[in-house]
């Protein structure tokens, strides 16, 4: 059914279609509308047989989820930014115990300085936590991928993180084609856990494992993710057969077949990149893009195949490992280590900075001329940076970097107008 709705509400409705049995709610911008929407659905009776629990922290949100999932209930929660850091210990625990929880991350920057706007550093901080991570380009994709996430999670006994850009997707009103309940009931069977807490068949879960088996346990967790490389496209196919829409999978490509310049990115910025590609294609440039949907497991074979004929790769990512560079680019470079193709790493959109078409055109001009450095910061204000560095050279006690910069660029004065 076609609807015009906010991304968060669309995700709430999609999650409800999956018939979750326990939902843990804790507010953090920008995911909050999702759990608010679900709370209302549980109260109104639209979502039946569901326990909706207001918890006291993100750590508790996922811990309650660990308990409910271990006791055999289909479990959902959502978080963002500082929230995912606060629950980090439970993030690792949930995957280690093989609990197929589905969690939305409304992608947002991590402080300090505190920043509520979009980038993807939060999800990326948990990229090695053993969860499957699926990044959505549009709200339609978010709807479809959330439903698929439950099936992927439960088939593999692995938790799945569905990542959608904060505000850009969570707060955007768009047209959504919402699947019917009957379709989802056909697509997604009830949760049948691998192991469950049950007095009729007592088991001990979460006990200690020593050096004699720990490596094998971790290796098998990796194997499950490798299995996911096959399962994720299969589940997308099953979904398409029932719902009638291609959504999901490991990657998607756009005008990539003959592209000499191939842009790799993930999330909502793919939309802007596609527009820019269309404009540049009209000028005759051979440029295309690859959207990584599954960041974990990382689809090495698909990336290699998609990049086979490219002359240069531009990895544009909204996350940044201080002291190293981009997390996505590191992974892409590893995937392409046997292919002699330059991989340019572009850090963009941190803390909600808009990624404009103009900026992308300038960037791709430089890329096409192979003038980009290995690590490039899109729209970095070099003058402001130099001024702050100079200040630090002159004064040991130069104060807060963030405050100084805001004074320099006049944001403090401007906000008074």
């Amino acid at each position, binding site marked *: 059914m076609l609807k015009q709705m906010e991304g968060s509400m669309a995700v709430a409705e999609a999650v409800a279609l999956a018939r979750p049995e326990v939902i843990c709610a804790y507010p953090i911008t920008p995911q909050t509308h999702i759990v608010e929407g679900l709370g209302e659905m549980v109260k109104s009776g639209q979502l039946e047989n569901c326990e909706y629990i207001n*918890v006291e922290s993100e750590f508790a949100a996922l811990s*309650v989820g660990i*308990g409910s999932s271990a006791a055999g*209930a289909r479990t959902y929660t959502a978080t963002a930014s500082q929230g995912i850091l606060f629950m980090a210990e439970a993030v690792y625990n949930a995957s280690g115990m093989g609990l197929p929880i589905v969690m939305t991350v409304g992608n947002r920057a991590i402080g300090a300085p505190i920043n509520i706007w979009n980038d993807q550093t939060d999800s990326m901080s948990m990229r090695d936590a053993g969860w499957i991570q699926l990044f959505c380009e549009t709200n339609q994709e978010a709807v479809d991928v959330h439903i698929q996430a439950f099936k992927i999670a439960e088939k593999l006994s692995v938790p799945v993180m569905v990542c959608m850009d904060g505000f850009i997707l969570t707060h955007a009103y768009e047209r959504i084609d919402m699947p019917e309940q009957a379709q989802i009931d056909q697509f997604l069977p009830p949760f049948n856990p691998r192991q469950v807490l049950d*007095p009729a068949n007592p088991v001990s879960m979460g006990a200690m494992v020593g050096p004699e088996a720990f490596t094998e346990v971790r290796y098998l967790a990796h194997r499950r993710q490798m299995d996911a490389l096959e399962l994720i496209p299969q589940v997308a196919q099953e979904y398409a057969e029932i719902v009638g829409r291609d959504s999901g999978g490991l990657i998607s490509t756009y005008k990539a077949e003959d592209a000499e310049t191939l842009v790799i990115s993930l999330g909502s910025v793919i939309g802007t990149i596609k527009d820019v590609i269309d404009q540049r294609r009209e000028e005759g440039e051979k440029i295309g893009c690859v959207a990584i949907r599954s960041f974990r497991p990382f689809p090495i074979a698909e990336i290699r195949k998609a990049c086979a004929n490219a002359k240069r790769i531009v990895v544009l990512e909204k996350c940044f490992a201080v002291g190293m560079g981009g997390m996505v680019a590191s992974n892409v470079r590893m995937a392409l280590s046997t292919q002699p193709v330059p991989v340019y790493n572009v850090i963009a959109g941190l803390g909600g900075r808009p990624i404009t078409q103009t900026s992308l055109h300038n960037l791709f001009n430089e890329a096409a001329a192979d003038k980009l450095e290995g690590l490039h910061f899109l729209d970095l204000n070099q003058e402001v940076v130099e001024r702050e560095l100079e200040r630090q050279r002159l004064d040991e006690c130069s104060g807060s970097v963030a405050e100084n910069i805001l004074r320099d660029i006049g944001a403090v004065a401007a906000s008074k107008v």
Partner: protein
Amino acid sequence: MTQQVKYYQTGTYTVGNRLLDQEQRTVQASLDRSNALDSGHRACQGCGEALGARFAIDAAMRATDNQLIACNATGCLEVFTTPYPETAWQMPWIHSLFGNAAAVATGVAAAQRVKGKKEVRVIAQGGDGGTTDIGFGCLSGMFDRNDDVLYICYDNQAYMNTGVQRSSATPPAARTATTMPVGPNPGNEFGQGKNVPLVAMAHGIPYVATASVHDLHDLERKVTKAMSMRGARYIQIFVPCPLGWGSKPCDSIKLARMAAECGLWPLFEAEHGEITDSTKLRKPAKVDGYLKLQRRFAHMFKPGNEAQLEGMQALADKNIVKFDLLEEKGDEE
């Protein structure tokens, strides 16, 4: 046959089961006990926690007709009962993290509700570190929501599993690895610490109690009573730790009894935030006897540390008033 049992005939509060009517005997005295925490685990000799857990869980198992799931915090109890593939638990049991046992229990209870399994009940359990410190946020959240969970804290007054470090349940003056008996104020500070049973009461939850391994009848009764109720319940059990306290393994029960008899460990029950009952003391003992049996308090008896002893006695005296522990004249049978 209604011969009155004289509880004090052995000179202690110990009551031999053979002196009691069948229905008054402990769950442990029954051949039908569940042995939920079975033998073969790796607890130290004289471990108060192993004893407390065995009595508490078996009592809860009987009260629920074995329809019970346990959620365990990281700690001694978790470690000594379950390295895979061995387990001492003859019941469904889950360990997740150090600080989230109460929240995991909330989730397990929610799953039972949504599946319509009203008869399946949930307990959470941990040591004092996992409860009063790192697990405190999740514990308070579980109380706040009045989730249908009995949380049992086995209080041995420090982080024993990591090598005896101070927790917020460590008593003043006590030596731990992080409160060493050096300097002008040896041991743990006076004026710090957290009384979690009182904090639990402040949440207004249906039931809060303290118990101790020297009075296992009382412990079983409190667990059974807790399991007859719904909502959030909390029991903190005093469990001596020979290793951490520097006491003889054979003195664990004796120390628990002495802690209660001097007033340092008041035994009481509370419902919906109000104290309903406390175990009376016929003649409160001085704290010295209890402290002397433990090396963690040895420095208190050195010349110059008299103020510490006085401070400890003052705490016991305060408890006696606060929890109304004195037996009134004429109460004696």
